[in-house]
């Protein structure tokens, strides 16, 4: 299976020209249009032979170079309507070509400088607050919960409800309040320094209202930073811990 190598060796015609000039070790101001044109065309031909896709910009530049070369040979005869006028590269004299190359060289060196900045900055790490980190420690009210992965918590809750679906139903009088549940959870956490399992808070046979109230009590306790929820891995069980 043959394939086109999409990635050309050079970002654009200026990059290629620049490379050729550097290779020839000539000063940009002293380039010979005839020579550089010959080399440029040679390179394009090599690219085509290698089945590399030659972008139209490269061809436009080739045409431009040929035009400049002809102008030098037959001065004054090429001031006619230019079919390349709408193209991105409109260069009418060697002087202009030199200016364009100098300008391109400048931005190339700035790009190199940016690359150095980029590399330096890659070695420096700032905090990203994407995760659920402890940001501010305030016993009264907290910004965000520590260690908890809420999607994980919600998933666990979804499992609970799924289990509930499978269990025989039992109509339960709504006798639980969030307040009571919160107290109950805090009590059961007392003395459990390593925390308790999320699921142990939901007794077997608990009614739906109890499950929901318990879950909401957990959310509220997390929000108030009375407890924290930990998960050691994506599929691991959730640990509920009292905050100190």
């Amino acid at each position, binding site marked *: 299976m043959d394939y086109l190598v999409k990635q050309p060796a050079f970002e654009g015609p200026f990059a290629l020209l620049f490379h050729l000039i550097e290779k020839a070790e000539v000063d940009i101001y002293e380039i010979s249009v005839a020579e550089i044109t010959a080399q440029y065309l040679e390179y394009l031909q090599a690219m085509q032979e290698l089945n590399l896709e030659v972008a139209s910009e490269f061809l436009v530049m080739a045409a431009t170079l040929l035009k400049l070369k002809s102008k030098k040979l037959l001065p004054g005869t090429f001031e006619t309507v230019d079919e390349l006028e709408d193209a991105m590269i409109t260069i009418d004299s060697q002087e202009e070509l030199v200016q364009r190359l100098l300008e391109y060289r400048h931005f190339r060196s700035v790009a190199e400088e940016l690359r150095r900045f980029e590399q330096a900055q890659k070695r420096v790490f700032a905090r990203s607050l994407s995760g659920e980190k402890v*940001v501010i420690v305030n016993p009264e009210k907290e910004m965000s919960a520590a260690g908890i992965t809420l999607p994980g918590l*919600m998933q666990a809750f979804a499992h609970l409800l799924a289990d509930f679906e499978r269990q025989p139903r039992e109509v339960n009088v709504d006798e639980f309040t969030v307040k009571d549940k919160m107290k109950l959870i805090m009590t059961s956490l007392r003395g459990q320094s390593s925390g308790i399992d999320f699921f142990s808070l939901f007794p077997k046979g608990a009614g739906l209202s109890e499950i929901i109230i318990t879950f909401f009590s957990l959310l509220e306790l997390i929000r108030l930073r009375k407890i*924290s929820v930990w998960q050691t891995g994506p599929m691991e069980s959730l640990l509920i811990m009292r905050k100190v």
Partner: protein
Amino acid sequence: MLIKPLVEALLFVAEEPLSLDRLAEITEFPVQDVRLALRELQQEYAADDSGLQVMEIAKGYQLATKPELAPVVEKLFKGENRYTLSQAALETLAIIAYRQPVTRVDIENIRGVKVDGVLETLLKRRFIRTAGRKDAPGRPILYSTTREFLKYFGLKDVSELPRSDMDLPRERSLFEEPGQTITT
């Protein structure tokens, strides 16, 4: 490389508390050295002229700000109004969250009390919104929770939540009076 600056840098960037073992593993220093470095850091940050602290949390260590600075530090996040909801509001929200869309009567049946006032507060606070009307006698208004609700509880990304799994089939509601049918 020295161990203390390494531990400091790691605690700083880590998204979650790092355990002794993990710190030792990453730094390739013995656990005792890590423990010592942590103790030093803890002492240094404990000084009054530092604004941070090394917290021991869930069998791990983490950098955090000192509690006494909270009033000022929180100003950075001003606009994120965080007050506590009343008990009534919480319970009502719980019911709406898992039963949405749900009518006022449905909520009152579950909670056993009138919820007009609470609903109004929740609507004003934008925790809930009206979500059309139920196809039942009187065509009562239906309520759903909002993005604001998720934000309040720190549920950042709605799409990440296993919504559909949590929604019980409505016809299996346990809280309805017998004979009352729900068709939504």
